[in-house]
């Protein structure tokens, strides 16, 4: 007798091997579940000990495992199996798709930050004696000039290096015919350096080398924080992309099974889809029978029976039986790709959103530049001479340099998203928070958002549940699983045989029993229904179990909280009329539509936008992705399909919908803080700029005022960070 009923051939993952620069080959894996020191040593120890494996390095921050194989040796499938056995499910991925792997920009920014810190500290060392000299202490002109030259020698190269990120960005923006925030920064810094050199050569007192570098240092902190926030979000999105294009099992003519990236599959390939896998490309069933869950494609909650000859669409989840599928389309031509194109169109419209800081820059840049120009012109008219007039103009530029805008907005966004992260919400970008703060209309998907997205037994009778549980435990069908969950621990039926798409049969305490469709257990007169199960035990009356997708526990409270915040709520679902009406009535939502296609959902979102509403879309299915991408802001639960998480701005984990309300509140607070900071910066400039124009500002006052204002806005931003709680888990 065979030990297993079905022999699983060793899978071939060689398509995922990359050549290693140092010789041999490398496999990159996304490993889930690794959290601690024990995990690292267990994974690296066990994988490193496998035959042919040269090195294994686990990165806990990104969740990636890099395995190096010696030349010609090593079996990727063995590595994945070993990880699986250790309890860490792993997926091979293409590192070129993961932005986090080579964060060159982050390193450049960190280096610029380091150089600016070095330059600010050391230029300051030479500036302090000069400042002291300004207040009448003994400092001869010769010594002052030496200090200025030392300050220039340290400060100027550092300012040029550390300013590069700003200069290049300003140049790009000017070439495109616009002026972003980096233009006044670059002009300010370069003009300051130039005028300071001239002062040093002429033996004047007004040199600002330290101010130029410390300005860049403060701005780089903001830039770096912003980059970190976006890099973390990008890496989360990159992981999703990497997971979204996993391998499909292709059966070659000799019966061997190979894992191939989905993009490489061509029509005519024979694919093997096991229970629990998603259909990789559109295809026709050649062998096998199963139930397919289309919930993420259409929003329908009821599984659909699939038999030989049926067509099935990419993205559907195979529930019960192993299917052999003849591919009829490539991945790009599959039904799933149409939705991807809608998503792309939506994402483009969203990228036209102008961030708060850029809106402020559009106002700020011309004002500051004309103020400086006016100072120079005014000085010349008043007969000050070009040197004095230029010095005052530069003082205006330094004083008004947009530290508050460059540092305060990223600081607010970073601390706001850190707070949300601790409460289980992943924010993908700072712009997402700004958009979320502006919404006034919330559109919710039903399946998987308002409901738990899995069937639950209606009115369970404990005795009846206990009778069916031994058979239900033996099946992976969602209805059977719901029954087993309801029953808790129980015995397992003997000699169980599952007929895919029909039901399970076995012996419970020696009596023959069947659990499944009405026809399968011999009930006549009942139509085929995907939301009920029948149990037949020898010598007992047949029992019917009805299932229904249950509302999330906090759905009602969340809808009330949204209404209390002055937001209007609407439900859009692809599911049938009755289930949607039931949910809407239970929640007291009057605006709802059922039976919508993905394109119709996106159209409704677009129509609401055209009506002047700012829409927050919350959805989890593939049928929601286009609507998500078209909405002003979008959220998806952590249980959502990868494509939806990808299209969303924020992803919330956990069972609760309450995170939606928390996210909206935090986004609104963050917006308030950012506006406060703008207000503070404006007030500061209203006082400081006229003082600089009047010639009341010397280098010491400029340095003090600038760092003081930066510190104030940063502290205001950090007030966001309060509040502990649960960490993000995924």
């Amino acid at each position: 007798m065979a030990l297993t009923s079905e022999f699983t051939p060793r899978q071939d993952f060689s398509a995922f091997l990359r050549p290693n620069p140092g010789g041999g080959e490398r496999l990159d894996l996304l490993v889930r579940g690794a959290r601690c020191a024990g995990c690292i040593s267990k994974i690296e120890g066990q994988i490193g000990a496998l035959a042919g494996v040269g090195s294994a390095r686990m990165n806990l921050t990104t969740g990636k495992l890099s395995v190096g194989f010696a030349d010609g040796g090593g079996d990727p499938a063995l590595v994945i199996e070993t990880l699986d056995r250790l309890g860490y499910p792993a997926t091979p991925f293409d590192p070129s798709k993961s932005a986090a792997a080579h964060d060159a920009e982050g390193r450049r920014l960190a280096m610029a930050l380091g150089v600016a810190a070095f330059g600010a500290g050391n230029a300051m060392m030479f500036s302090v004696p000069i400042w002291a000299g300004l207040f009448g202490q003994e400092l001869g002109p010769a010594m002052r000039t030496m200090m200025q030259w030392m300050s220039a020698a340290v400060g100027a190269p550092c300012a040029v290096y550390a300013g590069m990120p700003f200069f290049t960005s300003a140049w790009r923006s000017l070439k495109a015919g616009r002026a972003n925030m980096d233009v006044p920064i670059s002009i300010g810094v370069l003009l300051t350096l130039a005028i300071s050199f001239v002062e040093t050569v002429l033996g004047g007192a007004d040199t600002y080398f330290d101010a130029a570098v410390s300005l860049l240092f403060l701005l780089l902190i903001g830039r770096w924080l912003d980059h970190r926030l976006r890099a973390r979000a990008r890496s989360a999105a990159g992981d999703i992309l990497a997971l979204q294009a996993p391998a499909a099992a292709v059966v070659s003519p000799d019966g061997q099974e190979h894992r191939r990236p989905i993009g490489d599959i061509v029509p005519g390939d024979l694919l093997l889809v096991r229970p629990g896998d998603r259909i990789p490309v559109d295809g026709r069933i050649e062998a096998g029978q199963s139930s397919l869950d289309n919930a993420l494609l259409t929003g329908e909650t009821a599984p659909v029976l699939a038999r030989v000859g049926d067509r099935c669409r990419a993205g559907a989840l195979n529930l019960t039986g192993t299917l052999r599928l003849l591919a009829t389309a490539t991945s790009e031509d599959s039904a799933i790709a149409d939705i991807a194109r809608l998503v792309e169109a939506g994402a483009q419209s969203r990228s036209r959103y102008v961030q708060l800081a850029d809106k402020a820059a559009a106002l700020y840049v011309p004002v500051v530049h004309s103020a400086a120009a006016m100072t120079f012109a005014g000085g010349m008219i008043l007969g000050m001479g070009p040197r004095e007039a230029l010095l005052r103009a530069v003082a205006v530029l330094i004083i008004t340099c947009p530290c508050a805008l460059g540092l305060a907005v990223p600081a607010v966004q970073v601390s706001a998203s850190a707070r949300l992260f601790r409460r289980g919400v992943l924010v993908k970008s700072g712009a997402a928070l700004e958009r979320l703060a502006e919404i006034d209309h919330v559109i919710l998907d039903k399946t998987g958002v308002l409901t738990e997205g899995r069937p639950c037994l209606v009115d369970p009778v404990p005795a009846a549940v206990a009778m069916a549980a031994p058979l239900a435990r033996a099946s992976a069908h969602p209805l059977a699983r719901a029954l087993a969950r309801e029953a808790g621990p129980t015995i397992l039926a003997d000699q169980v045989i599952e007929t895919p798409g029909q039901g399970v049969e076995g012996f419970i305490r020696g009596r023959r029993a069947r659990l499944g469709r009405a026809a399968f257990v011999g009930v006549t007169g009942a139509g085929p229904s995907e939301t009920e199960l029948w149990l037949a035990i020898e010598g007992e009356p047949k029992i019917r179990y009805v299932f229904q997708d249950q509302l999330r526990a906090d759905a009602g409270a969340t809808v009330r909280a949204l209404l209390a915040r002055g937001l209007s709520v609407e439900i859009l679902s692809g599911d049938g009329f009755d289930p949607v009406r039931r949910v809407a009535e239970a929640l007291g939502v009057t605006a709802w539509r059922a039976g919508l296609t993905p394109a119709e959902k996106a159209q409704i979102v677009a129509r609401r936008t055209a009506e002047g509403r700012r829409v927050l879309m919350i959805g989890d299915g593939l049928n929601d992705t286009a609507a998500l991408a078209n909405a002003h802001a979008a959220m998806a639960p952590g249980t959502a399909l990868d494509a939806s998480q990808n299209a969303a701005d924020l992803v919330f984990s956990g069972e609760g919908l309450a995170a939606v309300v928390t996210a909206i509140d935090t986004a609104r607070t963050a917006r308030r803080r950012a506006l406060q900071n703008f207000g503070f910066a404006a007030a500061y400039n209203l006082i400081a700029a006229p003082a600089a124009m009047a010639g009341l500002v010397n280098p010491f006052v400029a340095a003090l005022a600038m760092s003081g204002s930066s510190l104030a806005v940063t502290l205001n931003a950090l007030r966001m960070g309060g509040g502990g709680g649960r960490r993000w888990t995924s």
Partner: protein
Amino acid sequence: MDILIFLAPASVFLALLGLAAFRWTLANGQYDDPAGDAERILAKDPEDAPLTGD
């Protein structure tokens, strides 16, 4: 005050050493996995373990 001619460049040189060290840590990938490094310090490192003699 002549001593400044020596001291000022010396202090800049020392700070440059610090900057070079930072550059090295950056190129060495020491900021790539902060979470992992925080845990690794708790793990028993076989390379540092005393020889057992058998």
